[in-house]
């Protein structure tokens, strides 16, 4: 097979088509403190300035030779724009929403500001995508990100209040989700207009909190609609234990599912039954953060042996991840290809 461009490779993998080699791309984030220093773009400024954001995001290609760029590092940009109380933290920690002080109580409170797309914390992403498109041309795919309504609900209502509401008043919960979905579409479309080739949608109906039936009842139809409405491939991301809901996710028509290390690659492949591509799932807190190059490569092998289409860390990588462990992901793919060639 002829050598593919990074974009061809990633898009083919997302459509479960043959590739020249397995791609490596993190649909969530590859920002580290070392790279922040290399390009002088530290957090939290790199989350709030398009120029710094693009500089830091570009290292995914220039330093690690991954196959895509993902400039939206965290999960809080739109929540900041709609008025959630923010904790921006410092260089080596993630900005978060103060969910202990939620801004809304009911579906009737949900209001999208008319200037949402002009808010600096939203514009930073769309402007960064434009900068990156200009700098890297058309052969490198840019993966944007827009939060799904479930995750937005956690942020605006608070996790406990929202989950209590799913039992106390499921109709109101659906109403809230449908209203928050407007933000998902607004931000997602804006990123596509700016040049994003793919969108990641984190929507945390995780097995750590809710059952697979919850996913089916509250989110499956919403995600099915997303698969039809967005004009680019969609990667759904849900952290935690999710193998029980992967069959429902696989039926949505979404292109890919980015899965957590709490689910083994093989059981994930079995659960989706070739109806959706898989992205993942190298463990972050133990393997990438604390272990060695050889441990990283072993997980790469496990993913490739199972048939995972895009190799990636399981989620946004720990900010203090050592660079050698990220290089090890790409090297792991090369080693695996060499080993498999020998066998054939």
């Amino acid at each position, binding site marked *: 097979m002829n050598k593919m461009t990074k974009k061809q490779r990633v898009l083919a993998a997302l459509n479960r088509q043959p590739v020249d080699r397995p791609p490596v791309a993190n649909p969530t984030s590859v920002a580290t403190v070392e790279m922040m220093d290399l390009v002088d773009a530290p957090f939290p400024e790199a989350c709030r300035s398009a120029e710094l954001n693009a500089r830091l995001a570009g290292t995914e290609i220039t330093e690690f030779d991954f196959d895509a760029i993902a400039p939206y590092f965290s999960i809080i940009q739109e929540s900041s724009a709609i008025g959630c109380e923010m904790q921006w933290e410092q260089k080596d920690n993630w900005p978060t929403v103060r969910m202990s002080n939620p801004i809304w109580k009911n579906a009737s409170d949900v209001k999208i500001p008319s200037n949402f797309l002009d808010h600096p914390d939203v514009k930073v992403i769309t402007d960064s995508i434009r900068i990156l498109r200009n700098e890297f041309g058309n052969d490198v795919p840019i993966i944007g990100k827009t939060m799904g309504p479930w995750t937005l609900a956690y942020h605006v209502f608070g996790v406990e209040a929202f*989950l209590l509401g799913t*039992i106390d008043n499921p109709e109101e919960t659906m109403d809230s989700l449908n209203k928050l979905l407007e933000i998902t579409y607004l931000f997602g479309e804006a990123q596509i207009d700016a040049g994003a080739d793919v969108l990641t949608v984190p929507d945390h109906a995780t097995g750590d909190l*809710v059952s697979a039936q919850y996913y089916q009842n509250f989110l499956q139809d919403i995600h099915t609609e997303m698969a039809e409405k967005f004009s680019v491939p969609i990667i759904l991301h849900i952290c935690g234990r999710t193998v029980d809901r992967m069959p429902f996710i696989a039926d949505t028509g979404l292109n890919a599912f980015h899965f957590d290390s709490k689910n083994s690659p093989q059981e994930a492949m079995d659960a989706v039954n070739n109806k959706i591509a898989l992205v993942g799932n190298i463990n972050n807190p133990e393997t990438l953060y604390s272990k060695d190059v050889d441990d990283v490569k072993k997980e790469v092998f496990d993913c490739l042996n199972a048939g995972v289409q895009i190799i990636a860390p399981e989620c946004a990588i720990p900010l203090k991840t050592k660079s050698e462990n990220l290089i090890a992901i790409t090297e792991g793919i090369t080693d695996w290809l060499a080993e498999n060639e020998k066998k054939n």
Partner: protein
Amino acid sequence: MFEHEGLLKEFQWVTKESEKKHIGESIAKTSLAMQEISFALIQGDNESVDKLTKENLENGISANEILDNGLLNGMSIVGVKFRDNIIFVPEVLISARAMKAGMVHLEPILSASGIEPLGTVLMGTVKGDLHDIGKNLCIMMLRGAGFTVHDLGVDTSPEAFEDAFGEHGPDIIGMSALLTTTMPNMGRTIQHFEDVGLREEVRLMVGGAPVTQEFADEMGADAYGESAVDAVDKAKEQVALLKDLKS
């Protein structure tokens, strides 16, 4: 015997033999009134728990009995269902809300002090376990009974138990776990105290929804508290035993 049909149905979710025995025996000796409270808690019916708790107190049922035979029996089944992924966090939250609705009436009665100090206890949930409902109830009961209790919180490593032991010199260390996966850390903590030569200096007690007497014996614990009230009784026994051993 199980007089409440709904509660009997809920009990079917308890499938491990040792748990069936321990939770089953605990419920079987309670009255219908207490079983009603247990069931309402499992259903997350906070209004009923509130009403039934008040009614039973007015009828002269003790706060201890309502706590152990009503609320905690219900919570033990909630704990099993959560651990076995029958229910998830939303369902646990409504049960916890129901528990609080009952505790609002019981806490002032249970916390009343004026008793002679009986001894010092360190309480912690073992490493990896972030659940503290059971631990907090035990602490409340122990303080109510006259113990000085230091709360080490959740996710307590063997070294942290040892360190706190050095700081407070307690008579008893109480370890709690809600997850079967973290229960072995009770054994590790006990082993750690052996390794550092402190085993003879303190009495080690274990408790929590998945814990049984057999498990406690296997781990080498000195005592097992199968309920918050039982924990208090056992703690009193262990303090007396430690005094004898050291004299």
